[in-house]
């Protein structure tokens, strides 16, 4: 099989949410001696990017996006050990998590998935994340963005605390802060001094791209 055809098949299998087929094709790419990072970008990420478009067009809903990302990750697990050398530094780097006290993470996961399909480098801190971890991780990986989400009003204040902490350390301007979640609004983002509020995952990715290229 030709390389380009294989990439197309991998991309299609991600869109079709066929995790076992993705695994099979990724194994094949290694047998064919194709560079793992090329397969990731032109096959897996390419497919996930199409999924993001389908989601924005409301052809796909959350279940399809999650299942496709499951297939994507199955492929990445196979290819990752074979990546030669470190990835270049040109990626947009994102530290993301659900703030302390909250375990609702579907929205955060969706932003992560769609950020990865836009080729961002994502550092996912998970849910119920101790507030200090956001800044620590951003410093460690030299991130461009800190993304925080929460579904509950009771944990919203944690976002302000992270921003205040950045200010206290005199590093507020090193990062762009993007926030989102059920009770979050543009008004709240303005109040706490976040750089942006995103109403959904697609707009989160769009806003990060805009800010990164501004």
């Amino acid at each position, binding site marked *: 099989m030709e390389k380009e055809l294989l990439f197309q098949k991998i991309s299609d299998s991600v869109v079709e*949410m066929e995790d076992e087929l993705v695994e099979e094709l990724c194994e094949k790419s290694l047998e064919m001696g194709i560079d793992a990072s090329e397969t990731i970008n032109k096959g897996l990420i390419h497919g996930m990017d199409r999924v993001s478009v389908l989601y924005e067009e*409301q052809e796909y*809903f*959350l*279940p*399809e996006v*999650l*299942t496709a990302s*499951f297939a994507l990750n199955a492929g990445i697990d196979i290819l990752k050990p074979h990546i030669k050398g470190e990835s270049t530094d040109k990626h947009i780097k994102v530290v993301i998590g659900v703030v302390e*006290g*909250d*375990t*609702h993470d*579907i929205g955060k*996961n969706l932003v992560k998935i769609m950020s990865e399909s836009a080729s961002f480098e994502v550092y996912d801190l998970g849910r119920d994340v101790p507030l200090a971890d956001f800044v620590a991780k951003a410093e460690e990986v030299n991130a461009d963005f800190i993304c925080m989400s929460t579904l*509950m*009003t*009771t*944990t919203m204040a944690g976002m302000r605390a992270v921003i205040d902490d950045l200010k206290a350390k005199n590093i507020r301007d090193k990062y762009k802060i993007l926030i989102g979640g*059920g*009770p979050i*609004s543009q*008004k709240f983002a303005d109040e706490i001094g976040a750089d942006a509020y995103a109403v959904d995952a697609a707009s989160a990715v769009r806003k990060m791209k805009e800010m990164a290229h501004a």
Partner: protein
Amino acid sequence: MHRIEQYLNGLVVPKDELLPIERMALYSKGEKVDRMPCCLDTGETLSYLINTPIDVYYHSAEKMYMLEQYIFDNFGSDGAGLSTTLRGMAEAMGSEIRYHANNIAQLYKPAHTLRDVENARLVDIDKDGRLPIILEGLRMVKEKLGDKVPVSGTVTGPFTIAAMVLGTENLLIGMIKKPEKIKALLEIIVENNNRYIQRLIDMGIGIGFADPVSSTSLISPEQYRKFSLPYFKKNVDFIKSQGSGCGLHICGTSRKIWEDIRDSGVTCFGLDNVESLTEAKEVLGGAMCIQGNVPPVEVMRLGTPHDVLRSAKKCIDEAHDSPKGFVLTSGCQMPVNTPVENMQALMDAARIFGRDL
């Protein structure tokens, strides 16, 4: 001066003339009442009103009753009742829930994975999870307040329960990868719900459903029709077969499934503030009472009493003439630490703008 500006500044708010139970009985028959019905969407988030930590409230029938008594005495809300909460049935089925003093409970560990979901169990209403505590609380509310205010129990839609039994992401992936397993789980949940619902019917308590995971913010209308609606209808049919009715609330977007909801047999629908009351009146108003939809966070939690009045007036203007009736309420449960003044303002909005309609 405008009445909104005069509020808390000299405006006399008309007193209620009817008890909630009298008002709702007349209103449901289409007869004239003293004011527009208005319900405060309360529950565990407002346990601070009776100086009780939220985790204590969750485990005390007495506290649950006390909060309803407080709300009746202080606000005159047109409904009293207790919810199983979104996690109550799933906890009874084995999910691990974490409780907090100042925050609502959260799912910590789902009862099942897609691998072992066939082991999902039928519950014992009198033993499992917090169900017996909630039922005892409802019994107390009904006994002490039942002659003054309609009492209802909120249960959870089968699809949302499935999310709490499996974890939402596993449920959503399972619909695509293991649809038959998900359907088998939903059948068990329907039976569990019916067992609980039977107790409510036996106590003469009204029934409402909360089903946020069925929102089109999460699943497609086709998925709703395949995995949520058929099982929800089994619960609704069970209720209707005994001569009772029930309401439904879905958080988030729901417009694309309103036609399905219209035909599902529910007698009342509460919409989230992201949806339009005017549109709900047109699509659903001929078939059922509609409820809504003052924004719970922006207005009820973070706004001023005057913001509440403005928002509530807009709701009343839009929906007061809905053919099968309208109940003023918030678009979802009010958040922790919602100011008392704002709850009062919501009730007063019905007293000020909900007369002579």
